[in-house]
């Protein structure tokens, strides 16, 4: 074995001055040559610890070896064995704190670009005429209902259909995919990619029912009469606000509303599609996570003069992925760190005009292990602003907790489960944001994987 190759291959991107005004995907993906070169950097460790960082336990060295050898079909086969959403995960997983963080080459500061390689393999597959289908076990006759067609539900569906169970997935909105469709913008996760992954799940035999709100159209208890087991993956669907004066002014949004108008309802095509989205001049996004970055970058693409992120802690504590933060900075998003909005001021017609903020400083560590932001007295200042978007998180959607008998609910409105996703209710499992509160796509998928195993075990008894 030769010298370590520490040249982590960059992935081509649209230049920032161009992409900040269009909705096309920012990252362009590896070419086959770049992918092979990057894959050849993998040391093929005897005891690969990168896998420990993957919530769905993909055989990472295995799929990378295939790419290095030019066997792209082999790489996607290995990926799909554990992950039915490789094109999604290759794009939105925080690899830097999962597999890539554990990569031995990360000690030298140049981990193998596992996410980019996953994305490459998934892309390669779409260029092929025929998609390889996995083996499906003979029918068990068991009926499974999955509530919510986001990442957790899709994973459970994919796992259980392969094991021979009959799977039906229910979705409240008119398009399946959950947060992948209504939340994450086109420029970060093209909807065509999501649709492709969902059509794969359907080709495996999963039945999909949209426009169906479990808890309203039929209750969980009613579905239990028809199905042997149920998985609830309804996500974190109730947006938090700051609870400061003026938040109901026109021009104030939850991140969910702003992104849903944009992504699910295709507001960027208005008036060709009928759901409008406002083109604001000065946009303030509150929060420091990926969703905040998505909103601020969306505002720029809609033509905002200034798009700000207002975050109460400092740059160091930003919960967003580093890559998304850097993209946002490159595109011209302006960051106001250590700043807290305290009041929204409107005009006589109820439209937002200004935001009053307070400067903060960092104090002692708090329970989250981050330094607590403390307001600086007398530091109030006013910024002219015509849009205010709150992206500070969501609590679990209340519809199922409110309408299901015998389901233990936690203090934050979440469904309580054991480590296998089993709820207090007979034959019902749950996973993803409805259990943990807002987290990442891959953690929801990991929870789905565990629940699927436990459900299969129950069904096999």
């Amino acid at each position: 074995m030769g010298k370590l190759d520490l040249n982590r291959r960059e992935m081509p991107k649209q230049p920032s001055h161009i992409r900040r005004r269009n909705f096309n995907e920012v990252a362009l993906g590896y070419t086959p040559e770049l992918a092979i070169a990057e894959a050849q950097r993998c040391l093929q460790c005897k005891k690969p610890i990168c896998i420990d960082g993957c919530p769905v336990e993909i055989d990472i060295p295995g799929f990378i070896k295939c790419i290095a050898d030019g066997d792209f079909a082999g790489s996607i086969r290995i990926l799909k064995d554990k992950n039915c959403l490789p094109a999604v995960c290759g794009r939105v997983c925080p690899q830097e704190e999962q597999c890539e963080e554990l990569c031995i080459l990360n000690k030298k500061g140049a981990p193998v670009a596992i996410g980019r390689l996953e994305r490459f393999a998934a892309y390669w597959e779409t260029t092929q005429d025929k998609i390889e289908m996995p083996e499906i076990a003979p029918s068990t006759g068991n009926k499974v209902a999955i509530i919510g067609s986001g990442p957790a539900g899709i994973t459970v569906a994919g796992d259980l259909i392969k094991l021979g169970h009959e799977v039906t997935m229910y979705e409240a909105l008119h398009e399946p995919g959950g947060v992948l469709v209504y939340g994450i913008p086109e420029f970060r996760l093209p909807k065509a990619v999501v649709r492709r992954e969902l059509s794969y799940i359907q080709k495996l035999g999963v039945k999909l029912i949209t426009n169906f709100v479990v808890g309203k159209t039929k209750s969980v208890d009613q579905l239990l009469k028809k199905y042997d087991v149920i998985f609830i993956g309804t996500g974190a669907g109730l947006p938090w606000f700051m609870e400061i004066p003026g938040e109901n002014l026109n021009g104030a949004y939850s991140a969910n509303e702003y992104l849903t108008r944009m992504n699910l309802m295709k507001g960027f095509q208005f008036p060709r599609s009928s759901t409008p989205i406002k083109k604001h001049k000065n946009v303030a996004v509150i929060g420091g996570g990926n969703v905040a970055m998505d909103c601020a970058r969306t505002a720029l693409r809609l033509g905002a003069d200034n798009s700000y992120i207002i975050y109460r802690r400092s740059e160091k504590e930003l919960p967003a992925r580093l890559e998304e933060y850097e993209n946002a900075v490159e595109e011209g998003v302006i960051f106001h760190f250590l700043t807290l909005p305290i009041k929204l001021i409107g005009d006589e017609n109820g439209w937002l005009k200004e935001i009053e903020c307070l400067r903060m400083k960092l104090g002692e560590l708090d329970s989250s292990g981050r330094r607590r932001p403390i307001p600086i007295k007398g530091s109030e200042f006013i910024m002219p602003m015509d849009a205010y978007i709150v992206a500070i998180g969501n609590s679990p959607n209340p519809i199922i907790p409110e309408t299901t008998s015998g389901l233990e609910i936690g203090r934050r409105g979440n469904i309580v489960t054991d480590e296998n996703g089993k709820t207090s209710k007979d034959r019902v499992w749950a996973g993803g944001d409805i259990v943990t509160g807002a987290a990442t796509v891959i953690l929801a998928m990991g929870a789905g994987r565990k629940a699927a195993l436990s459900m299969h075990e129950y069904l096999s008894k």
Partner: protein
Amino acid sequence: MFKVIEKEMIVPNLYLLTVQAPDIAEQIQAGQFIILRSHDDAERIPLSVADWNREEGTLTMIFMVVGDSTSRIAGLNVEDFVPTVVGPLGKPTETKKFGTVICIGGCYGIGSIFPVIRALNEKGNKVITILEARSNFLLYWEDKLKSYSEKIIIITRDGSSGQKGHIKRLSKILQEKAIKPDRIFVNGCTFLLSKTSLELSHFKVPIIVSLNPIMIDGTGMCGVCRVTVDGSTKFACVDGPDFDGRVVDWEELLKRRKQYLNEEAVLVHHSGCGR
């Protein structure tokens, strides 16, 4: 896909639409609503449900054409299919035995208050139904409502039917007839809801209004339907749509409903050719 069973203009600018949606028809209760999308590129529009047939699996809505989306719904034909009908959404109206209840409907609310009247009647209430319209040619469903009401009082602004006047006159009419309600229910435009809440507050009984703010998902996810009730923010889609009109911040709600007026004008201008 959901099939259109019936569509008709029942009075100028008000349409009746019946769709096949058996799952919803089986569950729906008085006061709940649905969200409908007429075409693949259309908005999600919340509509109050004015009647249903559980056996045939149908839902009937009455709505006013106010802009692009509602005119596209009005443009549907029998046998057409719409891509989205979802529900029943919102909490049902509380309908137990209160005693004497007043049910006020105006505009599309004459239709949407029908299930409330029927449910209240079935629970043994004495239902006084009030219909409000600009003129007599805007009234409909009187016979249908009559069969579940003790009495129907009609108020028209031009006096062409019933009492002449506006909702403002209602207080006086009730006084003349010595009607003392134990609870009041109102369905109709936001203006009617707000005015009634003001005019009838002296009865010191809950005035249950069915709110109709802008919505997208209708399941609590987006929060665009938020409304201030008794000083705190509520989501009309999951906490409502019924609230006590005496403590709703009407000024805020009226302003919030106007958020997309400019865009609506753009759409009306844009629609037509090629659509």
